[in-house]
């Protein structure tokens, strides 16, 4: 963590493989819409992107030792902030993204100040309760559209430079690139924090809070920082989803959705904040998408099965698969040699 990690994975140490793979992946993602212009594929990737942001934010909170069962609440806050600002106050969707992030961060600060003092199971229950409070609050509020929700939310396909020009794009493609930018930005920021001295201290706090306190580490401050930063990005993701789906209602922000966030992150591998979060979210979202078209009830069966399978066979998540296969390959190879 921190200096050590940087030394081991830096290009200056001669390790070119990872940056090259990442560059290639980035290139493929960027040219994707030109190669496969089918909007349904793009749409699915956008959904994967939103889920990835949420999964990454969940892992960041896990890093300080807290298990959040209410991440969708922050998605909702971001979404509704931007939606209301756009429909009722004519705020540009682009500014709405930033507004969504900051309002969500504000909520995270307020709720975290109280809830982060509790550890373990009770923290999880409190976040669960908070998510439900948010959902019910929205359902019962006429201002927020109640159970029917808000519709007609403006798209992210216009850049309005007053007096200069109005640039209009194709909606789905525009959203795809905005999603790439948001996921990339979130990934970069969270990866940076996780691999730095801050991330190292966060992991230390999760490993042993008493020891950390005795060494003078301001444990609560770190927990609050991680929580607020994680929820900021969740809020931005939420605001984006409001402008992508163009309609919003509280029934999508159930506790089940929060649990699915956890399943996605765990299946991907909670040890790797970016790789695990994005991989898990993408995998599960894609599989869910196929299963819905066959029979929606299969999703529940699949979720249960996948979490059991990962717990027993791949406890460190899908990201650990290359390493395990390599070790297995080495073992098989040695059988042939002996």
């Amino acid at each position, binding site marked *: 963590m921190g*200096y*050590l990690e940087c030394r081991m994975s830096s290009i200056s140490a001669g390790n070119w493989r990872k940056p090259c793979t990442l560059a290639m992946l980035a290139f493929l993602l960027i040219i994707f819409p030109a190669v496969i212009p089918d909007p349904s594929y793009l749409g699915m990737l956008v959904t994967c992107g939103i889920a990835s942001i949420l999964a990454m934010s969940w892992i960041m909170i896990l890093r300080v030792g807290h298990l959040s069962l209410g991440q969708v609440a922050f998605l909702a806050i971001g979404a509704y902030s931007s939606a209301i600002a756009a429909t009722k106050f004519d705020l540009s969707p682009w500014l709405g993204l930033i507004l969504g992030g900051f309002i969500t961060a504000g909520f995270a600060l307020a709720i975290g100040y109280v809830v982060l003092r509790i550890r373990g199971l009770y923290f999880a229950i409190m976040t669960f309760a908070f998510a439900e409070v948010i959902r019910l609050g929205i359902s019962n509020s006429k201002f927020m559209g109640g159970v029917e929700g808000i519709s007609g939310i403006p798209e992210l396909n216009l850049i309005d430079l007053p007096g200069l020009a109005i640039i209009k794009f194709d909606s789905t493609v525009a959203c795809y690139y905005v999603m790439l930018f948001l996921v990339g930005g979130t990934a970069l920021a969270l990866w*940076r924090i996780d691999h730095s*001295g801050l991330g*190292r201290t966060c992991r*230390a706090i999760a490993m*042993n809070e008493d020891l950390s*306190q005795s*060494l*003078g580490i301001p444990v609560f401050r770190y927990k609050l920082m991680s929580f607020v930063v994680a929820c900021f990005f969740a809020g931005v993701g939420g605001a984006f989803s409001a402008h992508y789906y163009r309609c919003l209602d509280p029934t999508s922000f159930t506790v089940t959705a929060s649990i699915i966030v956890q399943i996605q992150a765990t299946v991907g591998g909670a040890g790797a904040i970016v790789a695990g979060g994005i991989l898990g979210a993408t995998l599960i979202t894609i599989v869910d998408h196929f299963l819905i078209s066959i029979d929606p009830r299969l999703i529940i069966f699949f979720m249960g099965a996948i979490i059991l399978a990962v717990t027993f066979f791949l406890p460190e998540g899908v990201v650990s698969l290359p390493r395990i296969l390599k070790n297995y390959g080495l073992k098989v190879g040695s059988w042939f040699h002996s």
Partner: protein
Amino acid sequence: MALLQVKKVTRYFKGLAALHEVDLEVFPGEILGIIGPNGAGKTTLFNLVTGFLQPSSGKILFKGEDITGLRPEKIAAKGLLRTFQVTSLYGHLSAVQNLMVAHHLQEKMGFWATLFNTASYRNREKHYWEKSQEMLRTFAAEIKMEAPADSLPHGHQQSLGLLMPLAANPELLMLDEPVTGMNLDETTAMVDRIKRVRDSGVTIVLVEHNMKTVMGICDRIVVLSYGTKIAEGSPSEIKRNEQVIEAYLGSEE
């Protein structure tokens, strides 16, 4: 003037007094030993002084300042640090990484500097990484620097456990049973290490059951029994004190 003053500190657990009106003073540069049969309240005293427990009544002053009831991290920031009875390390981190975390009080990590990987952040990390390695080489050269801490042999873990609070630049260091579970060689090495730490300017308070160690290393000894202080003095005085002998022979020690 006393570095640490414990004034009439009392702590009740559900009506039972774990500590009753204990008075204690620790002077700069000394090694003070706290001994007593099991259940005498030694660890409770530690937890009260270092902020992990609140006293039911009484005051604790450090460097003249009232630290009663402060949180552990605030007390640590003032220069009062401790080790734990069950060696507390960050198991999955390596020895160097453990010390990097322990340097937190000295390494001023800024959020934005970290986020943007500024030169000042990188220099600071490098500086403390080298400092951590240096600490290991000086005080505990036998420890494998890169191995995860929970894979180290018990004696090495104890040594690393001593180095952790040292990285936070303490003025007073409280050691909770530093040589428990060590063999003769490890004990001698640890005692030597503790003496070197004291010589570098750190005042030490330690709790220990190993009488030979206590008598050999401590300048002064305080004896607790059933939550009260029953004796205080030099090792030779304590050895001959009748009440102390009775307290030990009378219990299941």
